[in-house]
Structures are given as structure tokens and as C-alpha cells.
């Protein structure tokens, strides 16, 4: 169990790192997927080792996968829009939400 949780934690941190550092917006989306997967691993692990009462953890994972899919769809649509407006998808390009 410990190993699984550690794997998930490290994967999550890698995902965060990606989100922070990637310049490419699609890269950010990918890193987000990594984080989702880390969360899923956690849920499934707990479902397996802690509460064997039904499969609530797995079902939650399914929901998360679905939501992740939806998020990806929307995210890519937004990326397309950004690309169209700024002629590029580097995250530095659209820093317009500043002071």
C-alpha cells in the first residue's frame, strides 16, 4: 500500500511540476492528466486495501476519468481558440490577466 501511495504522490508532484513549467499549453494539459491519474491510483489503492466495501473507489475513479475526458475536450477547444487568436499556444503569450 505504501508503495502504491508513494508512486501516486510522486506522479502527482511530477504532474505539478509539468503544470508549472511547461510552456506549451497542451503540455500543461498532459501534466494535468498525470495528476488525475495519480489521484485515481490513490482511490483504487484505498479501495483495494482499506475499504473492501463495494467498489466505491473504482466508481469514483470512473467518474474522474469521465470528468478528465470532458476537461481535456474543453481544454483543447480553448487551446484551439487561443491559437487562433494569438497565433501560438505558449502560455507566456497570453498573459493578459495581469494588473
Amino acid at each position, binding site marked *: 500500500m505504501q508503495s*502504491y501511495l508513494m508512486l501516486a504522490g510522486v*506522479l502527482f508532484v511530477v504532474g505539478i511540476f509539468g503544470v508549472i513549467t511547461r510552456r*506549451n499549453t497542451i503540455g500543461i494539459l498532459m501534466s494535468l492528466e498525470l495528476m488525475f491519474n495519480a489521484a485515481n491510483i490513490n482511490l483504487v489503492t484505498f479501495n483495494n486495501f482499506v475499504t473492501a466495501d463495494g467498489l466505491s473507489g473504482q466508481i469514483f475513479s470512473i467518474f474522474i476519468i469521465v470528468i478528465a475526458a470532458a476537461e481535456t475536450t474543453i481544454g483543447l477547444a480553448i487551446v484551439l481558440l487561443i491559437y487562433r487568436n494569438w497565433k501560438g499556444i505558449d502560455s507566456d503569450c497570453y498573459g493578459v490577466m495581469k494588473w
Partner: protein
Amino acid sequence: MTDPSEVGIVFWVLSTVILVSAVMVVSLRNIFHCAIFLILTLTGVAGIFVTLNAEFLAAAQVLIYVGAVATLMVFGIMLTSDIASRRIEMTNQKAGVAVLACMVFALGVLFLIKITTKAGAGVWQTATEPLPADNVLTIGKQLMTEFVLPFEVVSVLLLAAMIGAIVLARREAS
């Protein structure tokens, strides 16, 4: 039910694959290569699911992530950037700070996991009975009984996301 302390060789292989390819995903310069490694990572996670007695989830992972999401990513990459020619800096100036912060964060997380899962810590009670053997059947039943409301909500969410994506990505008439 697997003994918590006992992890087989399969786990080590899988976790190595996952972590290495995850690092690749966040650090490679070519975004297309990143996508490839992402697929590898996701497949690895599916394998992890299998070791955790979640065969249905593993299948769903492969189908949805590897089959759909990753493909979508590739399409997105191809639509938005010239993969072959431009090799731009893929990380920004905050990389130094980010590495530092993430190290601290990871250490904190690992420390927490260590102390909470230590034998006799008593934070989590361990399960006493095995998971239902036929987990596809159980998941189906639970989805349709206990979790029917979230299930419906999530379907509406998907629909909304679909419509939203279409509306966003549609080219303006002019």
C-alpha cells in the same frame, strides 16, 4: 486481497515505467514525444490498476485515456504547432523555483505517507474481506443503484462539455 507490504516485481517494473515516462512528459522539448510518453504512462497506470484488482478500470483507462484522450492530444498538437521544425524552449524561467518547490512538496508527501501507513499507526484500518470477484458486474450494479444520480449528472456534464467544445472551437462565420 494483497498483503500491503508485499509488492511484486510487476509493480516495480510498472512504477519505473510510469515515473520515467512521466518525467519525460514534463521535460522533453518535442511536444509530440511528450504525447507518446503520456500514452506510455497511462498504459502503465492501467497496469497498476490491474495489480489492484480493478480490471474494469484498467480497461476503461486504456479505452478512454489511451484511445481517446491521448489521440485528442495528438490532434491538438498537430492542429496548433509545427512539430518538426520549431524546437523552442519548452520550460519557462520558473523552472528553478519549481524544481525546488516540487522537491519539498514531494518530500512532504512521502513523509506523510510514510508516517500514516507505518504499521500500527492506525490511521487507516485495513480491509478484512476481499473485493467482489466479478467487479464489472458489481460496478454496473452500483452505478445503476447507489450512484445513479452522480452517473446521470456526469452524463449531463459530458454532454455540456461536448456542446461547449463545439461552440468554442467552431470557426466564426466571418
